[in-house]
């Protein structure tokens, strides 16, 4: 019991510190790609703490409650991601539990954004949910292939099976890994799929009415969300990690790849993004599942 609580707190602190540092490093990398010096790598910490010192204004009960629901749901989801050999709830981390809990975060943000009354927020949330329709479909199909092959849907078991078997999933089902990566970029909200934030178009989308402390909480929630999504990808396709340092290294590599692809791309419109997701990624995921079911069979 004590071990569980301690490892939960350790995982939360690790997720927050590592992800926010990586976001700062990502800004630095993007700046170097643009041939300029960027901000120091601790800039995102300063941003979050500065937001927590500003005054803030509330728009009613639903507004406040939605922010708490978003942050609480995301924190609950983080506790189910295995990070190397730091597994908080061994035996309980099923992929479906994580996907179910992720919905609470998004629902909380949608509720409070609509409760703020600004039409920009409603447009942003509409676009976010439409884009979710796009990227969830190929991702789920690839996941079904993975579950069929390994006979399990528990994240830590998948990581252990890949490590003991010797090959990572990215090598035995490469098409699925590519589709998973493209869906990951949609989940993270990186260009070219960042239409639901769209700073110059709809004034930051769902975040438009949050000031001060709410913004600090939501930036923390965004960091945790990034940790969950990339952690999911690393555990499913790259084998998790025998130790925690291996996990953090693979996390960094995936994030680095996403950052350098997104720093040179413009932005899709939301219907273009959905059309894109339902064309090639969907076809490739079907091909992958057909290969897994009929050719590879189950893992013995």
């Amino acid at each position, binding site marked *: 019991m004590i071990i569980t609580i301690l490892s939960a707190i350790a995982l939360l602190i690790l997720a927050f510190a590592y992800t926010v540092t990586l976001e700062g490093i990502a*800004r630095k990398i993007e*700046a170097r790609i*643009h*041939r*300029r*010096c*960027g*901000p*120091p790598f601790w*800039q995102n910490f*300063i*941003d979050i*703490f*500065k*937001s927590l*010192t*500003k*005054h*803030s*204004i509330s728009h009613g009960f639903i507004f406040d409650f939605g922010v708490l629901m978003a942050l609480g749901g995301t924190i609950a989801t983080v506790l189910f991601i295995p990070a190397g050999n730091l597994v908080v709830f061994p035996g309980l981390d099923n992929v479906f539990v994580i996907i179910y809990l992720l919905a609470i975060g998004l629902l909380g943000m949608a509720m409070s954004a609509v409760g703020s009354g600004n039409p920009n927020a409603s447009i942003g949330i509409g676009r976010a949910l439409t884009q979710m329709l796009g990227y969830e479909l190929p991702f789920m199909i690839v996941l079904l292939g993975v579950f069929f092959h390994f006979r399990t849907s528990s994240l830590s078991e998948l990581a252990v099976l890949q490590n003991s078997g010797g090959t990572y999933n990215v090598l035995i089902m490469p098409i699925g890994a590519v589709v998973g990566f493209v869906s990951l970029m949609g989940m993270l909200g990186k260009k070219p799929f960042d239409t639901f934030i769209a*700073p*110059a178009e709809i*004034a*930051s989308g769902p*975040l*438009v*009415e*949050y*000031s*001060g402390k709410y*913004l600090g909480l939501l930036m923390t929630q965004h960091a945790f969300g990034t940790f969950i999504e990339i952690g999911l990808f690393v555990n499913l396709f790259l084998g998790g990690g025998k130790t925690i340092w291996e996990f953090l290294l693979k996390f960094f590599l995936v994030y680095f790849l996403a950052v350098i692809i997104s720093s040179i791309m413009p932005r899709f419109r939301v219907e273009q993004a959905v059309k894109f997701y339902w064309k090639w990624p969907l076809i490739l995921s079907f091909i992958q599942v057909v290969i897994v079911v009929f050719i590879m069979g189950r893992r013995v």
Partner: protein
Amino acid sequence: MNNEQTAWERVANMLRARSLWMLYYCTGCGAIELPPTMTARFDMERFGIGPMATPRQADILLVTGYLSTKTLRRVIYSYEQMQAPKYIVGFGSCTINGGIYYDSYATINRLDLYVPVDLYLAGCMPRPEAIVNGFKNLMDKIDQGEATGWKDYEANYEWYRKNQIDALGEVYIHDEFHE
């Protein structure tokens, strides 16, 4: 000018100075000097200053250039929507004394009669080097706790309001599409 800050205020001011978010209220022709300052040559992001699209989350309201009376009403709306602590930077000589439009029937001549200004940047328009220098001065002022425009606005609200009504008539915005 209260230079004795508690430890908490000192930490808070240090954080605020190093991560300033600007609301690009590009009211006049001075806004043309902002893209060179933000892009790769005179990179402004290395000081932590970044663009922000909505007044609720911004720290600095950058009033670039002349302000007609029509725009001033909307600037006052935006300023009052920003959350404390907030700073205003007056950009260009039109905010200082009217600039080349000093005899126009539609532009105001002194910005700090209507909203409290923390820093002026002289020039028509100031070059990016001057802008970076000015922001460094603003960061020093915030560090020492001297940039207290928002407290002035709350304390002397009656005086600002009287000046606004004198110049503008009314600060209410009539929206042609909804009336």
